[in-house]
């Protein structure tokens, strides 16, 4: 009986079965994953006027690059595009310059360079040989597009040119435990977590120009500092795990004050980490303990916070670093809810969870625009 059946198949049905199998394999590519639609996520929550909107997140290269169409009548077999997805493993430092996101992936270890508008997801070209990264923690870009990376395992700052080629390094001789950095036209500012100070380095010669930020007399200086931000006007801001506070100083090393303390209240910190400045001298501070971002004005007054509310999207998960930009607003505006005008874009890295980079827009709802309607951008992005 079995032999007859085999013969029947072999004789009359083998061609049809083969075609059915081919068709089913080919059509597998047509099945699309459906993700639940969510409305816009705003902070602060209603009835307050919305000031920050969660725009989108980046999990891996798929969220950046042009999505390849899986359907093919001619390719049979496994989904080859899945193999091409480049993952971000353990992000930390982030910078944004000239339309590109520079992200430190400590685990890979590498620098991921993402051009959202250009739909490119690349890694650092010079991450080989002498320029090989061991544990990149934070990254900064200078006006010429040169890339500076703090490598906490190599205990130095590595410099790559705008094309990603390794150029040289700074600080091996005098840095103890580099954690973060800032750069201006003439100097590199290396935040040293081990020495609780900032090493000012001449960009040209690599010479140590000075150490600033030390506690002197009655003036509280840096205390186990983790992150550093420069406002581009000569002022530096550091987050300090030791005191749970932010210290502001000028590039000459004069400590100008600070704010915050350990605590769970508004404007207080548990594990202050990434810090950035924005327009109107606003200061954005990431807190790994509160798992949020607190925004302060130039008088150190807390304006609002976001990221820790239980929303369907945009919740931060062990956030680490932050970058704030006013570049390419037109690109990011597409992700905003109708009527919500973005003035500034905030990028936050998450050390845990699927969202490796969470992107938020700071702005305001234009007169007459409602906030209840769904985010066209969010839907489009899905």
């Amino acid at each position, binding site marked *: 009986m079995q032999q007859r059946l085999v013969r029947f198949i072999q004789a009359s049905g083998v061609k049809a079965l083969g075609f059915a199998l081919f068709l089913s394999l080919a059509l597998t590519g047509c099945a699309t994953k459906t993700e639940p639609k969510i409305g816009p996520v705003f902070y602060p929550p209603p009835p307050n006027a919305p000031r920050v909107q969660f725009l989108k997140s980046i999990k891996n290269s798929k969220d950046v690059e042009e999505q390849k169409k899986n359907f093919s009548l001619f390719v049979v077999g496994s989904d080859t595009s899945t193999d091409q997805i480049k993952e971000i493993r353990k992000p930390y430092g982030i910078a944004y310059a000239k339309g590109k996101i520079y992200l430190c992936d400590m685990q890979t270890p590498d620098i991921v360079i993402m051009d959202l508008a250009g739909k490119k997801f690349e890694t650092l070209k010079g991450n080989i040989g002498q320029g090989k990264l061991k544990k990149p923690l934070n990254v900064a870009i200078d006006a010429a597009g040169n890339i500076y990376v703090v490598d906490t395992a190599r205990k130095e700052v590595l410099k790559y040119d705008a094309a990603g080629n390794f150029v040289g390094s700074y600080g091996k001789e005098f840095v103890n435990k580099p954690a973060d950095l800032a750069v201006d036209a003439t100097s590199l500012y290396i935040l040293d977590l081990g020495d609780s100070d900032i090493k000012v380095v001449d960009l040209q010669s690599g010479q140590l120009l000075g150490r600033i930020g030390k506690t002197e007399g009655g003036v509280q200086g840096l205390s186990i500092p983790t992150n550093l931000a420069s406002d581009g006007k*000569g002022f530096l801001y550091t987050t300090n795990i030791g005191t749970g506070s932010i210290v502001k100083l*000028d*590039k*000459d090393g*004069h400590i*100008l004050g600070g704010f915050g303390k350990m605590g769970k209240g508004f404007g207080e910190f548990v594990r202050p980490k990434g810090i950035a400045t924005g327009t109107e001298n606003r200061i954005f501070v990431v807190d790994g303990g509160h798992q949020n971002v607190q925004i302060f004005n130039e008088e150190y007054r807390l304006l609002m916070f976001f990221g820790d509310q239980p929303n369907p999207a945009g919740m931060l998960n062990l956030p680490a670093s932050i970058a704030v930009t006013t570049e390419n607003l037109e690109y990011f505006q597409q992700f905003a809810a109708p009527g919500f005008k973005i003035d500034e874009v905030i990028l936050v890295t998450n050390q845990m969870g699927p969202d490796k980079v969470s992107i938020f827009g700071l702005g305001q709802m234009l007169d007459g625009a409602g906030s209840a309607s769904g985010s066209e951008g969010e839907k489009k992005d899905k």
Partner: protein
Amino acid sequence: MKASFILMALGLLLFLPTASRAEGCLTAGCHDSIRNLARGHQPAADGECLSCHVQTAAEHPVKGSKSFGLVEKGAALCTQCHEAMGKKKVVHYPVGDGDCLACHRPHGTANPYLLEVGEDQSELCFGCHDSEPFKQPFMHGPAAVGACTRCHSPHESEHKSLLRGPVRDACLQCHQDFARQLKTAPVIHPPVQSDPCIDCHDPHASASPFILKNKMPELCFDCHADIGKRLAGAKVRHKPVEQEGSCGRCHSTHFSQARGLLPTDEKSLCLGCHGVDNLGQPPLKNISKQLAGKKHLHGPLEQGECVSCHDPHGSDFFRLLTGPYPEGLYFPYREGAYDFCLQCHDRNLLRFEETSLYTGFRDGKQNLHFVHVSDSRKGRTCRLCHESHASDGEKLISKGGLPFGDWKVPIRFEQTATGGSCAPGCHRPLSYDRQNPVKDRQR
């Protein structure tokens, strides 16, 4: 012809008895005074005595008793001819009582409206109303001449105090010129916009000019309490506030063309007094002369502002400055001592010995502002190099020199792309360079 004759005869028949009756009442030395009144009550003048009076005894006259009475009592007598009153919200007390004769004479007087008084009604009104509040040095025109009924209705009104209209309307009926200007004024004192004028003015009389309810500035402080409080504790007060006219010397009290209810723009107003040579004793500087033809004005002055630096009412600091600044030529920098200047200028300008941020007046990183001002023995105040109002020099650096007794100490400041030099009367010529420090080159 026959018909007209008949009509004339009928007219005579009607007229003759009336004439004879009036002649009967107002002659024979009986009621002679009524006949001689300049403005008689119409019935009296017409001899229509019986329209009000009625004979109550057969004989008339009867010595020792009255043989005529009134046909009605109280206001009912008057309302036979006049329209009844007392229907409006506010009724003059005698009118409500039907006591028309409290004000009017029934047969007539020498004045209109059967009143004993003419245009000056004060004697009549003060018969009941207290005259004491009217005995003040400053009086509202109508009140001063007793024209009470110019504003008040004598009988009844829909408005309080028997006014002829709402308070503002009652005022603006006469003050029409004021009303016209008010309509087009860009800046209006809020109470003037819609509130009753009597919020500030007494409508009759006052001890204060402009019949204000209280003298300025106290009247103004009723609303502007913050200024009053500040002024009460101020060590230095702007003179005009305490002089006659007080607030009104600088502010238009009703409306104006400039913000702050100033009669003109701020700078012009201030220079109106401070642009002369003989203001005060010893005379204050003539600021107009300081500004005239100068290339550079201090920022606020460029904007036409004086009050950014000087409090126009009062201050705890000399020259009515809005913050602390040393009075003398020398004062070593210390936190707070120069806060007046540092309200606008970078607070860190004078704090640090070295800087690459807060000033261009540095040799390398050596802060030369710090060098000048922080000298613990003889810290130089800003005015030793900078003019406070205007200068021909950049950064208001004095060109003409600082008055130092008989000598005007020159600065002789020269600027270069990366620094500058000066050869003042204070020290030997010195220069500085931000990029290649002179101090280093001299070593």
